[in-house]
């Protein structure tokens, strides 16, 4: 119930933010265009053939986007053509080209693939394009004035630099506003995405300009070859990236099929694990792995009998031995998956204890990976508090309040749990994660 309410609220929030941004960005774009009208010099004679070919080619490039569905982004590959338009025909035409392209494709493309796209998002996309274009043009005009004109290559690079930077900033800002994540995170993700493509992208932009200026504009469609190769590479990379998360989701779904309760509110607690990892000084990608480890740590329970796990009474030694195999089995299941290699020892050792009484290897304190210690704390907390829904409570123990659970963690810290991890976890819980 509470969750549903917050989701609705968040959607309303998102829409409000989107509207506000749309108005703001349209304003700045219009201002920029007006300013450009006075500052940028117009060519005496329009190179009509070049303009038409650039328009057609960029439309073709725009019509084959890559969907980054996990991030809700759609990548298109028109910048080289827009840059050439700005240099050869004029900045205003570049703004027009990019805006028309964006609106056209943002309206038509969802029809082709059978999705809906609300006018706000179309407008927002167009406004972002126009803004980036205006800033790119400003950089271009500044470069032209500095260099005295006549070096189209440098002007094109300047345009792409201005365009790329402002586009990246705007998209990251939008993404961070909409997903409640710190902007730095989405920015680094965007940069990583862009690092591969930007070199080739800039080169393609140069190529288009060179073809237009020094050969024939009719050769411009040749530049679609690098653009399409790049698109293909990014698409498959996205697939690989998605497959990684699908694997995690499928594994945890298998576990949920085997034992409906095991999952509990582990998803939410996993977020707390990530936060604890951050607090203990781990890097963001590493903390992200800890989060995935927290989701997957009980994966070995797929191979444990549900009758034993759900047994309300105390387990006999044989059953205990059976249940205790799950950490080894979890490691064995993840063993073949290369991107999850790092998790294998963490999961194997998530029932080790600092006093050396844990299983399966009875490791001493200093040999237990700290990631395993985080998982141990998170898991114990999850086991003690349990969710309110049916099937979310462990049968062998009555649920406790959060405060009781924290007190219990502290009582056992030093013997069963690592004191530093417990301390960090307490802070994290008190800030409202995990409950």
């Amino acid at each position, binding site marked *: 119930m509470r969750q549903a309410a917050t989701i609705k609220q968040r959607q309303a929030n998102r829409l409000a933010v989107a509207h506000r941004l749309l108005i703001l960005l349209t304003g700045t774009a219009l201002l920029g265009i007006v300013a450009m009208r006075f500052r940028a010099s117009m060519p005496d004679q329009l190179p009509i053939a070049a303009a038409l070919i650039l328009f057609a080619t960029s439309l073709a490039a725009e019509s084959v986007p890559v969907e980054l569905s996990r991030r809700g982004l759609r990548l298109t590959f028109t910048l080289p053509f827009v840059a050439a338009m700005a240099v050869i025909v004029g900045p205003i035409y570049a703004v027009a080209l990019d805006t028309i392209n964006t609106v056209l494709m943002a309206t038509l493309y969802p029809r082709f693939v059978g999705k809906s796209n609300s006018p706000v998002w179309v407008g927002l996309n167009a406004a972002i394009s126009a803004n980036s274009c205006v800033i790119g043009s400003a950089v271009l005009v500044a470069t032209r004035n500095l260099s005295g004109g006549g070096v189209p290559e440098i002007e094109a690079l300047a345009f792409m630099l201005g365009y790329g930077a402002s586009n990246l900033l705007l998209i990251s800002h939008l993404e961070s506003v909409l997903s409640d994540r710190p902007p730095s995170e989405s920015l680094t993700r965007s940069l990583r995405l862009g690092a591969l493509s930007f070199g080739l992208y800039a080169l393609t932009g140069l190529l288009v300009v060179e073809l237009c200026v020094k050969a024939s504009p009719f050769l411009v469609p040749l530049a679609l070859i690098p653009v399409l*190769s790049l698109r293909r590479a990014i698409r498959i990379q996205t697939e690989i990236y998605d497959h990684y998360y699908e694997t995690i989701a499928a594994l945890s779904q*298998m576990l949920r099929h085997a034992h409906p309760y095991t999952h509990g509110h582990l998803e939410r607690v996993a977020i707390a694990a990530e936060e604890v990892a951050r607090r203990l000084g781990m890097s963001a990608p590493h903390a992200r792995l800890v989060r995935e480890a927290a989701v997957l740590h009980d994966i070995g329970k*797929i191979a444990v009998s549900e009758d034993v796990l759900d047994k309300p009474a105390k387990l006999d030694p044989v059953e205990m031995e059976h249940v205790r195999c799950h950490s080894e089995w979890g490691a064995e299941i993840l063993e073949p998956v*290369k991107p999850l290699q790092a998790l294998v020892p963490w999961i194997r050792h998530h029932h080790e204890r600092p006093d050396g009484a844990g299983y399966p290897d009875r490791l001493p304190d200093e040999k237990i990976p700290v990631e395993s210690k985080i998982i141990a704390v998170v898991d114990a907390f999850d086991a003690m508090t349990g969710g309110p829904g049916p099937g979310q409570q462990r049968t062998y123990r009555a649920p406790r309040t959060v405060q009781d659970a924290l007190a219990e963690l502290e009582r056992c810290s030093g013997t069963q749990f690592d004191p530093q991890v417990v301390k960090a976890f307490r802070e994290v819980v008190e800030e409202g994660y995990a409950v």
Partner: protein
Amino acid sequence: MKPDGLFWIVFLSAAGITGWLYFYAKVWLPKHLDERLQESVKAFSTAVELRFPSHAGLSARVEKLSVRVGRQLGLNENQLRDLSLAATLRDVGLCSIPYALVNHRPVNTWSSADFSTYFQHAKIGSAMLEMIPSLRRLAPVVAQHHEPYDSKDGLPNRHARILHVVTDYLWVERRQGDFLARKHLKDLSGTEFDPEVVQALLAVLTSNPDVKEREAAIPAL
């Protein structure tokens, strides 16, 4: 303006990088994606085999034999790859079948209700694959891998027919031996099993009996 030095530098370096990128996107990345697929499929089947130790090793044998049958039937490399993935994945749905049913009760004591619970795994497995876009194309194969040839829901797809014949053969062979297993196939060919696939399997078995592999098999349930 005529093409000058800078033009050719830009043109040739763009051509070079494009060539490299084309290779990267056409050869290297798909290989990479394929490896990831194989790995996660391996993880899924390891999970099922750990849950039901009596199935251990069966998956690998089904996979090997169905690829050989597929080759005999003239499938191309892509189809064989899908067949091998589907053979490994076919039982992911078993994770939702009660542990005690498979591990603690011999098959000959199962009631018809138990059997229908057990055969739910095909549907559950395919529902799980539906949620994984990169493996979605295998969902129908997994859904139908226990469907009879003359099923009233229509002809099962080809990969599913191959898997059905191969799993049944190995299942019977494991407890009753090769001779009876072949007889089982021949008896039900045309009703339960696709005759074409049965012919192919018999041809594969005759041409290369692979005695060693059979000896290494784990004893029956």
